[in-house]
């Protein structure tokens, strides 16, 4: 009897020791609606590696505003989470990679053959000098214009293809007392700005803004602010008090004609509001951006000096795999960056977005961390305020140029 007990105790101790040595802490801001998608991934991981103790360290707050602050204090305090969520692109490379805090994932990419399955535009965004730094899990599109098809028919208009067409439509709608374009709080205005910038500049010059080949105060870039001002003249006056959901609600109810928002709106419209894609709500690329896909993606990387490197690498393998991505994305309402994902699992909107993602030119989003580093992103809010209070395109452009220089944009 004693022997058995001792054996049990020893094996229990061994098990707990093993469990203690095999841990994986996943740091993300996926709570609430996005929680189940993360759960699905963790479930897959646990099925493969049952001995690992997975800790879900979620910090709530939209777009990771709070999580990023917590992450910073943890990293600076020398307690990095094993793997943390980050927006793919400059938010990572301009901040953590520049500071020498991340491990290069070239070997893992080679082993898994990811260089072939991820599109080139995406690989460019997540790499510096040919070295990839993160594994992207999902892709969202930022330049989508949403509308209510029944209402547009009633008003006798069609979704404008360019900004000039939009300004004409704007006049028609304003004459009828309808808000042409509904915007919400501060960040949704910046979100609108990047769609205007792409629609005004075209993809090549849009990319040149972020790699500093085109100056922010060059005449071309000043034109963006002028257009943006004209677009703002077509928007509602109570913007700063509205969340993006409230803004799109006005489109659904017919008080406003259009709204430009990322495609998480599709999830909100179909899941929460129970509208049918195509009939209940319509979607086109925002004016002037047809054929271009402003991308943002969530990704995970491998911080330097983590204790459980093997577990983290296994986690990254799962994130990049077809099975992992197709378990996660349909629940999250995003699409998989892999070009071999199983589209039958996705919603009607997501299928069309995935088709666009595979054929369109891909550029990065500013507000959602792909195009610029955190310092520029955060200070861009100040540029926006300068524009909103002075209404001067030149002043805003000069301020943007100053911030770009100050934050070492594009390096």
């Amino acid at each position, binding site marked *: 009897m004693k022997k058995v007990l001792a054996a049990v105790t020893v094996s229990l101790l061994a098990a707990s020791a093993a469990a203690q040595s095999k841990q994986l802490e996943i740091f993300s801001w996926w709570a609430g609606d996005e929680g189940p998608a993360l759960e699905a991934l963790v479930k897959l991981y646990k099925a493969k590696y049952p001995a690992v103790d997975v800790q879900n360290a979620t910090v709530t707050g939209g777009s990771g505003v709070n999580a990023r602050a917590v992450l910073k204090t943890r990293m*600076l305090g020398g307690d990095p989470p094993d793997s943390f969520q980050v927006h793919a692109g400059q938010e990572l490379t301009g901040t953590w990679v520049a*500071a020498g805090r991340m491990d290069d994932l070239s070997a893992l990419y080679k082993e898994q053959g990811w260089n072939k399955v991820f599109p080139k535009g995406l690989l460019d965004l997540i790499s510096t000098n040919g070295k990839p730094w993160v594994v992207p899990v999902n892709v969202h599109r930022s330049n989508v214009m949403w509308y209510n098809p029944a209402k547009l028919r009633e008003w006798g208009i069609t979704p404008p293809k360019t900004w000039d067409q939009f300004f004409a439509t704007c006049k028609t709608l304003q004459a009828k007392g309808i808000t042409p374009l509904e915007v919400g709080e501060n960040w949704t205005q910046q979100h609108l700005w990047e769609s205007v910038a792409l629609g005004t500049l075209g993809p090549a010059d849009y990319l040149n803004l972020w790699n500093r080949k085109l100056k922010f105060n060059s005449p071309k870039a000043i034109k963006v602010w002028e257009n943006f001002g004209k677009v703002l003249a077509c928007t509602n006056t*109570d913007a*700063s008090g509205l969340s993006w959901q409230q803004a799109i609600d006005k489109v659904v109810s017919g008080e406003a004609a259009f709204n430009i928002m990322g495609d998480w709106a599709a999830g909100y419209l179909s899941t929460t509001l129970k509208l049918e894609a195509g009939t209940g709500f319509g979607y086109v690329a925002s004016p002037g951006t047809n054929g271009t896909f402003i991308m943002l993606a969530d990704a995970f990387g491998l911080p330097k000096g983590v204790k459980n490197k093997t577990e983290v690498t296994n986690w990254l393998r799962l994130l990049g795999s077809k099975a992992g991505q197709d378990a996660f994305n349909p629940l999250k309402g995003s699409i998989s960056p892999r070009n071999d994902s199983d589209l039958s699992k996705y919603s009607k909107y997501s299928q069309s977005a995935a088709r666009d993602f595979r054929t369109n030119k891909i550029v990065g989003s500013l507000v959602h961390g792909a195009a610029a580093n955190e310092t520029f992103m955060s200070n861009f809010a100040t540029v926006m305020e*300068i524009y909103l209070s002075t209404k001067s395109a030149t002043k805003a452009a000069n301020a943007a140029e100053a911030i770009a220089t100050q*934050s070492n944009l594009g390096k």
Partner: protein
Amino acid sequence: MANAKQPILKNTPSPKTASKKPMDFDRLYAALLLIPSIILVGIFVYGFIGQTMYTSLTNWGQDPAQTLALNPQLKYIGFQNYGDLFTGLLDSRFRQDLVSTLFFTVFFIAGSLGMGLILAVMLDQNPKGESFFRTLFLFPMSLSFIVTGTIWRWLLQPGGGFNQLGNSALNTLFGTDKQYFGFQWLNTRQQVWQFNWQDVPFYTALVVGLVFFYLAYQAWQNRNTNRMIVAAISGLVLLVWGIIWGRNAEWLYPIPEDHGFNLAFIGIIIAAVWQMAGYTMALYLAGIRGIPEDLREAARVDGCTEIQIYQKIILPLLTPITLSAVIILGHISLKIFDLVFAMAGADNATTDVPALLMYLTSFRSNQFAKGAAISMVLLVLVAAVIVPYLYTSLRKERR
């Protein structure tokens, strides 16, 4: 202390041993009790203030390769961050925040004191259910600013709360379907009482000059001719300098900056006053009740009306309470952060305050040194409110 007790102890047989031993033990005991807290406060309060001060003099955050590195290499750059905050092109938001704080503080203190005094005077009339009302008025105090902010954000939205209530009330009354109210409590960008930040040197010279003239006036009353002349000349020189070089100081700021009181702050001030008026009411009520009834009786016998009693007796006696309330409210208004965050969000520059900007600068745009500089400016502002108060109250205690 030891000296005071010496005469008594002198009469005892062996004064030295008898006096020293217990005193030493007492001192040791006191020191032992005090040392841990002195060390802890020294490290965790003053040590970190010192570190923040040092951080604010470095370039932490300017070079992305160093900003979040494991051991960031910081370079000492002197007061450049402070210079940027007060004169730099990109930091006009900070200067607007300073102006906003000033306006917020003034209206918040005036509102809280006024409301609190009115409520206290009303309760002082011994109405029916006085204790019920007292609790009711004090109740908002028990909420956190986040809760208050969230509730008031709902109430003050253009499409919700007050506007909706008013509209539906008027519509039922008149049987119409109109939008009567559309107050932009929190969303407006309109500014009033604007002034050009380039005029700051002039205003500073004006204020300091007036102080000099006041000193000169005092000296004249005390018949101190020398001092009067010096003070008057200093004030005059400052004023002349301010008028000639202080206005439109283009040598200091590249572009004119109009800063003023953002009307969007009205909503936040309403919420803040709603929360803190109960507190000032409690202070005032305690003060009023502390005034002996004899005084009032004597005044009534002398033929004072009720209003005159408040005017001549009660309000003057409440001055110290007002002063301490001003101090407390003033420092609340300098550290206000959660209320603004909950009501208007972090990103609206129209309703921004320095504490919020400090958070954004440090933890969103990774400019730790500049964030530290903002917090040092805030520290100086708080000290400007608290230190004179502590100084006078300590001096009073010593008397």
